[in-house]
């Protein structure tokens, strides 16, 4: 056995039994240091004849590499072990240091969901003023003064003909005054009506209004868009029905019902045993509205729809009191993540 083989055997025996990081350092010095065992062998090589010198040199260098990598491997092994020992002293059940959780208001979330679906159907989002004039809130929408059709639109007035909008339909007029068809827009926003506050009424609430105008928009397009919306909003198996109704700014007008998703249409307290939930109003844009904004009603057709966000949020989450939205108790708000 050559001297190199002896050193190799000794090193291998020692390294496999080394249990401390400090021991590794000591070994490194002892074998590979300036006065180390292998170093001294390498140094003595010059005394050997030419051909032996080459052979022994190669062997010694090979061992040097082996030792270096052996020490590194052992170091990694020992370090891992030591970290593991430290970790086992910690109580992993103590709470972590994550930052607190925030959240969006349920009305924002509901309005966001509605908007995203319509954006995916090609609608552009637009907003309009809350402080409005009678022209935009009523006249241009074919709601005459002193007409029973105004009954549903009791309004807060500020001064003269300036008022707080009672629906988001005012934005329709602003949009149409500004641009020519074709377009499809979604108009979410805050609206106001002087209703005494109770569990289902609020003097301030939110609506989402939609409008699509081109030269060939039909009632079938309206049904298509709203059917796609309702299925993604309320579930794939949602059934729908369109009932004739009356709104001054649409004709034909429809009330849109969806099958009650609580009882699956069997009849329950929420749907008043009818199996249906009234979800929005819709219709083809009345020619008088087109006239009010200077569109040719013989050329353009369009559909419009509108829905109440609070009502939809209440139905979706099973919230029984509209006032909860504006009380802002964080124990309520934090349920919506």
């Amino acid at each position, binding site marked *: 056995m050559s001297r190199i083989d002896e050193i190799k055997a000794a090193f291998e025996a020692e390294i496999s039994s080394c249990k401390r990081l400090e021991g590794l350092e000591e070994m490194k010095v002892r074998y590979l240091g300036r006065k180390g065992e292998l170093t001294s062998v390498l140094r003595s090589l010059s005394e050997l004849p030419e051909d032996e010198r080459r052979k022994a040199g190669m062997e010694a260098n090979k061992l040097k590499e082996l030792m270096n990598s052996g020490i590194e491997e052992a170091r990694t092994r020992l370090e891992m072990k030591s970290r593991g020992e430290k970790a086992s002293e910690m109580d992993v059940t103590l709470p972590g240091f994550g930052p607190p959780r925030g959240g969006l208001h349920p009305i924002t979330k509901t309005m966001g969901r509605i908007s995203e679906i319509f954006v995916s159907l090609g609608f*552009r989002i637009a907003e309009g003023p809350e402080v409005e004039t009678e022209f935009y809130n009523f006249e241009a929408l074919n709601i005459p003064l002193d007409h029973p059709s105004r009954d549903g639109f009791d309004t807060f007035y500020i001064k003269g003909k300036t008022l707080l909008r009672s629906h988001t339909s005012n934005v329709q007029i602003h949009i149409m005054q500004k641009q020519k068809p074709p377009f499809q827009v979604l108009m979410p926003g805050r609206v106001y009506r002087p209703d005494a506050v109770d569990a289902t009424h609020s003097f301030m609430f939110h609506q989402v209004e939609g409008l699509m105008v081109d030269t060939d928009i039909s009632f079938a397009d309206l049904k298509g868009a709203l059917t796609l919306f309702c299925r993604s909003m309320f579930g794939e198996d949602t059934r729908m029905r369109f009932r004739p109704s009356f709104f001054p700014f649409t004709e034909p007008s429809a009330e849109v019902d969806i099958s009650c998703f609580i009882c699956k249409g069997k009849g329950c307290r929420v749907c008043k045993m009818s199996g249906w939930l009234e979800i929005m109003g819709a219709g083809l844009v009345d020619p008088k509205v087109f006239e009010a904004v200077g569109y040719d009603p013989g050329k353009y057709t369009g559909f419009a729809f509108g829905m109440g966000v609070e009502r939809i949020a209440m139905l979706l989450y099973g919230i029984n009191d509209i006032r909860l939205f504006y009380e802002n108790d964080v124990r309520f708000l934090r349920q919506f993540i």
Partner: protein
Amino acid sequence: MKLSYEWLKEYVEIDVKVEELAHALTMTGSAVEEIKATPQGKTLQLEITSNRPDCLNMLGLAREAAAIYGKKIKMPDLSAAKAERTSMRVECQIKAKDLCQLYTARVIEGVHVGPTPGNIVKRLEAVDLRTVNNIVDVTNYCLMELGQPMHVFDLDRIKGAKVIVRKAVKGERLITIDGVDRELSEGMLIIADADGPIAIAGIMGGKNTEVTAGTKNVLLESACFDPVTVRRTARKLAISTDSSYRFERGIDKGMVAPASDRASKMIAASTGGKIGKLLEAGSRAETAQKIIKIDVGRTERLLGASVGKTRIKKIFRGLGLDIKKESAAKLKVKVPSFRGDLMRDIDLVEEVARIYGYDNIPSKVSKIIPQGERKEKPKKVDEKIRTDLAGAGWQEIMTYSMVPYRAYEDLSSISASPVEIMNPLSEEQKFLAPNLVDGMLKVISRNLNRKNMDLRLFETGKIYKKTGPGEKDIMESPELCIGITGCARKNWKEGAVQSSFYDVKGVVERLLSGLRINTFFKTADIPGLVTASHVRIGNEKRLVGFAGEISPKTLERYDISQPVFIAQISLNEVTRHAVLEDTFTPVPRFPSAFRDVSVQCDKELEVDGLKDAMEQECEGIVKKVEIIDLYEGDKIPAGKKSLTFSIEYALPDRTLTDEEVGAAHDKIKKAVAEKFGVTYR
């Protein structure tokens, strides 16, 4: 509107289950809300839209049923009543011709007031009408049957044998049959005799001419009053009657005289009275002959359904519309007087859709119209702010836009001039919000009260301000409000860290840096706030809001007893400066060098000034100056503080040498010492 199924069957021969009828009516626009079983048979509670006054009676609903089921209408007996000579004479006159197109009256002499025949009582009870006597009940019966409101006066109590339709004059009063003494205002339409008012036209009769048990002779009124005047008067007097409800929506002028005939005969039959001649003022003529042209192709295109001309004609005939003329593509239709709502071709399109059935119109997958950006910048900024804040641990709130005057008064230094509402629900909602802080403090107060102690909240909402004296001088602008109170951080290792001004400042900085906006805070004197600061942004350092701690005195008014820190920022300004687009610049290839410097200076010296000076002294080499420590305490002289900055040095095109960094660092230290008189440790 209550519908009796048994009564309806008098006019249309249908034999479907009541549930099926209810469904059919609902699906054609007369929504059935409830079906009830009564001793008089099944009744339906209907919601009739305001454009369909013709459906507010049995005959009208029978027409709907007839159109749905393809049946013929059986009309009630509307033949003229045989008039006899009466000894009593009355004169009718319309003075307010603009408000009353047609007024009829008829004398019925020698009546015996008594109980109403059982068949009439049965009908009235089915639709929840209370019976009075054999005269009044007949008018109610005809109202429910035909939709024509009528009124009966005690003829002997009419003064001067005269009934005049005129506008009330100032000071006139009338005790109506409900016993209320009402002050009539000028211009209200009334019926008067020689002495004064005896009825409020179309709304309610007067006690002075009411039919009583002792009444011997009556005058039966059937008329057509202007919807607007009836509506205004009813609203002003705060009364709504079955009569006013129908007049407001518009009645069938063609039914005025026939209804009078039918009622006269029924009254005569049950009271033994003698029917006089029909007295008439005004005109029976329709204001306009209603012929509407409708294009079959356009109808089908609007509906997106191939209904077919034959079907359309059948629908019109079923609804009682006469087809006057037809060509291959067009129909000319005459509208009967009872359908006042049908005026344009689009109204007829709706009739086609209604009876054809909305459910039978196909549902088409709509096209997408190409149109640029789906969301405008303000919307994108608003959404980014909300999601950023929610992600950073802040909870969104939503408060009322209407506030009491207090909201302005208590926070006047941070409020816009408030906008007042003319008809508020209460003092608590009398003004539009002039700031968002009031809403925030109310929410904080309510939550603290409920023991929700650590709050970090935000709201994006509008504030409103008066910008001048005119009715249009009102501005609404979106703002962001942030509020924090209680512990900012709390855990078992580091304990609780109370929230501070720097939590508000930090979140504003973080938020705006996400929109690539530089933020500057500058000490300001804002009443109502302590440690107050203006918030400025952008390169021109525009004032966009404020931040600070709400003064304890203000907090007291909101019943809050722990510190609250707040900021309010204009979103219009933020949107204007925000850069939403990501842009790429190459990542530096050469490493930075870092050197720290500890400065001792006067406590009052603001860090921003020092930092700016350090950044500017060796521009081009200094990449960033960051404050990493602040010490105030025993180890340094009183009135002093110690600040440690870390300065990052780098060049874009090569690595800086130690010597270059050292030289720059010394230069900065020297310059800052000269400028601010600071010392180094």
